[in-house]
């Protein structure tokens, strides 16, 4: 979809970008990361012809962009910048409608599109469409910025540190929104950041740059597992192993676990614990509700008379959550294992801290 071939950009004698080549597939979110001044913004600006390459060329959809009128090219590419750059004299709706208006869309079509986009980025149209940028919080403003970039349904989106100026909580909200939007729309996105956690969270492919050159590119897992040199190792940080766990799903480490129901006869349950020290307990819907410890004095009756009942959130994780989240819960609850549940909150198995440490 986007091919950058031997791109070099000099400012006077200073080479901001040195001979970089990059291929971004359709529907892929590529995160370009690197220290400040390494040429990320410059590369992005070459793609929508805000800068002219000194050498090399860029192809979008197989077409050399130097053959496309810059104005036409830009209307077909969404562009989001760090400081948002909303027009202060226009409402949220008018801001979003900018490109469709430049493209002379029909009024009704623009209205529908704006409403759809406000919903898409999580802003209630009734409340927000008439607001001016000065009345929006930083997070809301950037949501409008994203909607504005998506307005004419471009195939390609360029995002230059779009969440860089937001506080951590708002930033992670917008990151999650972007993940959701991207899973729906499957745009081809080149996303610039200098935040490694953001890169790992969002990227299909990460491109790490330094001094105008690409140092390493590949999937987030590849970068974390096989950093090519000290610069990459340092950049991804000493907590590489932990970061990798944030990319791994709980189901990877899930193993089957025995369980009994609340109404099981206690003697059967004791038999099932065998030489273990506990067994999980589920309710009539197979939803985990607690556990049963092995040490009991001559028990009679049912499991429900002896087991420990705990609230669901305290001792379960969903198979789709990250191992990092599971570890976090274990540490918080002071336990060595958690129940793994599927989407319907039914018991699937368990995950234990020992397995995580031994197998990762």
């Amino acid at each position, binding site marked *: 979809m986007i091919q950058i071939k031997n791109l070099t950009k000099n400012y006077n004698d200073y080479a901001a970008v040195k001979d970089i080549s990059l291929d971004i597939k359709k529907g892929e979110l590529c995160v370009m990361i690197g220290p400040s001044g390494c040429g990320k913004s410059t590369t992005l600006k070459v793609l929508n012809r805000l800068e002219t390459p000194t050498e090399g060329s860029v192809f979008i959809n197989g077409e050399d962009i130097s053959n496309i009128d810059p*104005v036409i090219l830009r*209307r077909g590419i969404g*562009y989001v910048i760090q*400081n948002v750059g909303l*027009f202060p*004299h226009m409402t949220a709706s008018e801001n979003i409608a900018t490109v469709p208006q*430049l493209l002379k869309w029909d009024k009704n079509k623009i209205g529908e599109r704006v409403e759809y986009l406000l919903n898409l980025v999580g802003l209630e149209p009734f409340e927000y469409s008439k607001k001016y940028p000065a009345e929006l919080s930083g997070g809301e403003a950037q949501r409008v910025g994203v909607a504005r970039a998506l307005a004419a349904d471009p195939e390609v989106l*360029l995002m230059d540190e779009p969440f860089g100026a937001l506080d951590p909580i708002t930033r992670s909200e917008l990151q999650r929104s972007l993940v959701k939007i991207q899973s729906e729309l499957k745009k081809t996105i080149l996303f610039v950041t200098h935040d490694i956690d953001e890169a790992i969270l969002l990227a299909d492919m990460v491109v790490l740059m330094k001094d105008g050159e690409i140092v390493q590119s590949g999937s987030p897992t590849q970068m974390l597992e096989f950093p090519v040199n000290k610069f990459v190792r340092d950049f991804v940080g000493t907590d590489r192993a932990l970061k990798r766990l944030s990319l791994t799903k709980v189901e990877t480490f899930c193993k089957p676990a025995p369980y009994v129901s609340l109404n099981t006869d206690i003697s059967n349950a004791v038999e099932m614990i065998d030489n273990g020290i506990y067994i999980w307990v589920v309710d009539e819907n197979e939803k985990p509700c607690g556990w049963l410890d092995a040490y009991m004095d001559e028990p009679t009756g049912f499991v429900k008379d002896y087991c420990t009942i705990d609230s669901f959130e305290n001792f379960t994780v969903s198979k789709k959550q990250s191992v990092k989240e599971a570890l976090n819960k274990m540490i918080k609850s002071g336990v060595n294992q958690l129940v793994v549940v599927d989407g319907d909150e039914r018991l699937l198995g368990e995950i234990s801290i020992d397995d995580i440490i031994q197998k990762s």
Partner: protein
Amino acid sequence: MILFKRADKKLFLMLFALMLFAILPELLMPLYKATAKIGQDLVYSRAPILSLLVEHIWLTLFSSGLSAIFGIMLGVLVTTKAGEDFKQVVTMFGSIGQTLPPVAVLAIAAGFVGYGTKPTLIALFLYGLFPIIAGTIAGLNAVGRDIILAAEGMGMTESQIFLKVKLPLAAEVIIAGVRTSVVINIGTATIGAAIGAGGLGAPIMAGLINDNFPFIIQGGVAVGLLAVFTDRLISLFEMRIRAYRT
């Protein structure tokens, strides 16, 4: 005009006072009596204040209109890429014109085109140019770099960026420059009377020459009222423009 939808009390009060005084300068008779020397005329009688006021308005309207047109054009020109090189020259000439005493500008202009309304208009035009150029440049330069980057990145053409983004955002500051210029011109226009341009300067000049204080008061009060009224009028306009940005 939308401007007057929400009646502005102060504005109407100022207008009322101005018109009343122009028609009936005798209203301040006690003041004239108290300041006049024995045997002096108390009310300027060579022309009614009202017709002098109309003359004065024409003088400033015409000169400030020209200043606004040329000032905004020059200001816009020197903020484009093509005109950047002229920025220094234009602002330099503008500020030199501003530091010359108006009487000197008037005398030079009279030297070229003779006495009367013409040299006065030229002097006022030149004099009113600088605040407008300065306001236009300031207003356009104040439009954020990121806003323009976004506009450019979205595929607006140069002229679309200017008309849809820069100009509306700079309008308030540009109009503020125009207001300063007009108000200064209303005051400065009084000296036109010295070379026969008429206007509210006439009673003031006559008063100065004949040592007649009431005449000076009559011209001065009328000019003052006209200035505050105009200032208010244009301020309201500025506020209306700003309302779009909340």
